[in-house]
């Protein structure tokens, strides 16, 4: 699809247009404590584009930490169910980081697997995702090893690449194309390709990823469910689940019924994590994942073996939030490197 341009002034006007028309605009913005969150913004000045990873990933916009599924009430001898809306008003995400947008797309597969998750897809369909190329990779990032990169378009409808005075606009999806068509007057002509190439090259740089491409890791995991490695690499894991909370692809949830008085209540869906002991605790008291290293193995297996086997793609976009968030100093890139070394060792050797 055709590339376009947009100046900072036109982008500011576009945000103002959208908000005036009643379209919510969410962008990375500073919270009271100075850190970035995806928040509603009223003006472009409130957004921080290309300023790094927001605290929670984009997944929280599509799978909120808590959401009602329906409410119930006693109605005579019966129970009446009040459903929740599954269609949502139009919404624009401006300034998604590419690894977050990729995470949302990866999750589409599981959300449309054994049933179609109406709330997830209701929000997905209502939302246009405008990514901004990333200029803030640090030593925890490994997007390149997962097929991403600072200018990756996976999951984005439009990608903005910085140019002098504004951005090149890469149109990625038909939804992105339609968005540009509706706001045609805000967009300029095609960018100078040499300028875009220079900007991309600057962002990509000559960085060496901390992890090599992960196919050998996936292959090793397939037949190393039992391996001494697991007990070794997970000793410092507290099982706190901070990694899953900040992860753009961890999507497990718990379902609870919350009574609100005697006659009515709400069924809610809340984030959960396989890193918690209670996640697999049976009513009998038996826990098939009794030890923390087994729970950690589950997290690695799901992302790099189970999901690829079922859906053909990794459940990790290399954003590095898990390493940054871990109070125990666990580092997923290091674990993946260790596995890659085992995978490369001759059979019967150190592995």
């Amino acid at each position, binding site marked *: 699809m055709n590339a376009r341009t947009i100046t900072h002034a036109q982008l500011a006007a576009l945000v103002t247009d959208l908000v005036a028309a009643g379209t919510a605009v969410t962008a990375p913005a500073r919270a009271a404590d100075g850190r970035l969150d995806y928040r509603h913004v009223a003006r472009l000045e409130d957004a921080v584009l290309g300023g790094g990873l927001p605290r929670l990933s984009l997944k929280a916009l599509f799978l909120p*930490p*808590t959401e009602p599924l329906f409410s119930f009430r006693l109605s005579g001898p019966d129970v009446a169910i009040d459903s929740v809306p599954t269609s949502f008003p139009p919404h624009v995400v401006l300034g998604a980081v590419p690894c977050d947008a990729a995470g949302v797309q990866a999750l589409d597969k599981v959300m449309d697997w054994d049933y179609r998750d109406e709330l997830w897809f209701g929000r997905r369909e209502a939302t246009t995702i405008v990514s901004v190329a990333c200029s803030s990779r640090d*030593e925890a990032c490994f997007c390149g090893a997962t097929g991403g990169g600072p200018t990756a378009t996976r999951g984005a409808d439009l990608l903005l690449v910085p140019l002098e005075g504004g951005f090149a606009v890469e149109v990625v999806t038909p939804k992105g194309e339609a968005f540009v068509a509706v706001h045609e007057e805000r967009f300029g002509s095609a960018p100078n390709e040499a300028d875009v190439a220079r900007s991309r090259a600057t962002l990509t740089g000559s960085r060496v990823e901390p992890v090599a491409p992960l196919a050998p890791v996936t292959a090793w995991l397939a037949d190393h469910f039992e391996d001494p490695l697991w007990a070794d690499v997970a000793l410092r894991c507290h099982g706190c689940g*901070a990694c899953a909370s900040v992860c753009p692809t961890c999507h497990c949830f718990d379902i*609870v019924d919350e009574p609100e008085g005697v006659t009515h209540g709400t069924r809610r869906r809340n984030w959960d994590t396989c890193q918690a002991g209670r996640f697999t605790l049976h009513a009998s008291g038996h826990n098939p994942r009794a030890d923390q290293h087994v729970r950690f193995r589950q997290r690695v297996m799901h992302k790099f073996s189970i999901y690829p086997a079922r859906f053909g793609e990794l459940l990790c976009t290399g954003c590095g939030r898990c*390493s*940054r968030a871990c109070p125990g*100093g666990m580092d997923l890139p290091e674990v993946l490197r260790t596995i890659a070394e085992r995978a490369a060792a001759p059979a019967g050797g150190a592995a």
Partner: protein
Amino acid sequence: MRELRDLAAKLLSEGTVQVVIGWEDGPRGVRPAFVTDPAAARNLVFDERCTQNLVPYLSPRRAHVAKLGRPAVVVKGCDARAVAGLVRETQLKREDVVVIGVRCGGVVADPSSLEALSPATVADRCPGCTAREPHLADHVVGELPPPPPAESRRDARIAELEAMAPQARWTFWQEELGRCVRCHACREACPMCFCERCVADKTQPQWVESSPHPRGNFAWHVTRALHQAGRCIDCGECERACPVGIPLGLLNRKLAQVASEQFGHVPTDDPAVPSPVGAFKKDDPQEFIL
């Protein structure tokens, strides 16, 4: 550092312990280390980056660590209070662990930080520290470094919050606690949250709603803070573990101030000193009881 490494190697090679829990350099600053081979004791470090409290790894909930065998743990003075807490509350027998104390001049808030210890980078608990030399230790190693920066940002922040109108303070906590996603990382990383089944995980009845809506979040955070009153040893692990940056240390510190004012209790590494909730005295103040 040499003294620490030599001691760890000796304890391992003579079979006194099977694992030394200390700190090592990792890919992102220092991190907890579990040394089982005497030769690997040379990887142990202690410096101003070693902010992590390692005592949570002694909690009975860490079965995967317990499997390594009898542990030695390296503690700063503040961390030693967690050992005392576990002994005081019968979660750990003192003789089941070898405690290696390190003399401390303060640590940075972020163990992955490359910045030196300064008033801007120091952990909230360090200013005014009175526990720079651990008492509850079988061995104490290292020279006593100069004291940490003196000014406490946290106490100043608490004073600011207390000076706010109630509505403004409420708004502040609504914003902060509103971010909570109820992962309970604060609990899992805490040395004193050792309950096999936390009240927040009980469902019959459901005392605390598990949903991260304002009602559930306030119920959880008030419960957590009150269960720590007079028990919190102020290591800051809860706040450091929080993936959304909730300033839990403000709540812990405020309750510690109350425990000090009302009961004369200050966190200590003497396990014989009871915590206010663990002891009854006839002259306990009760004017706050309705």
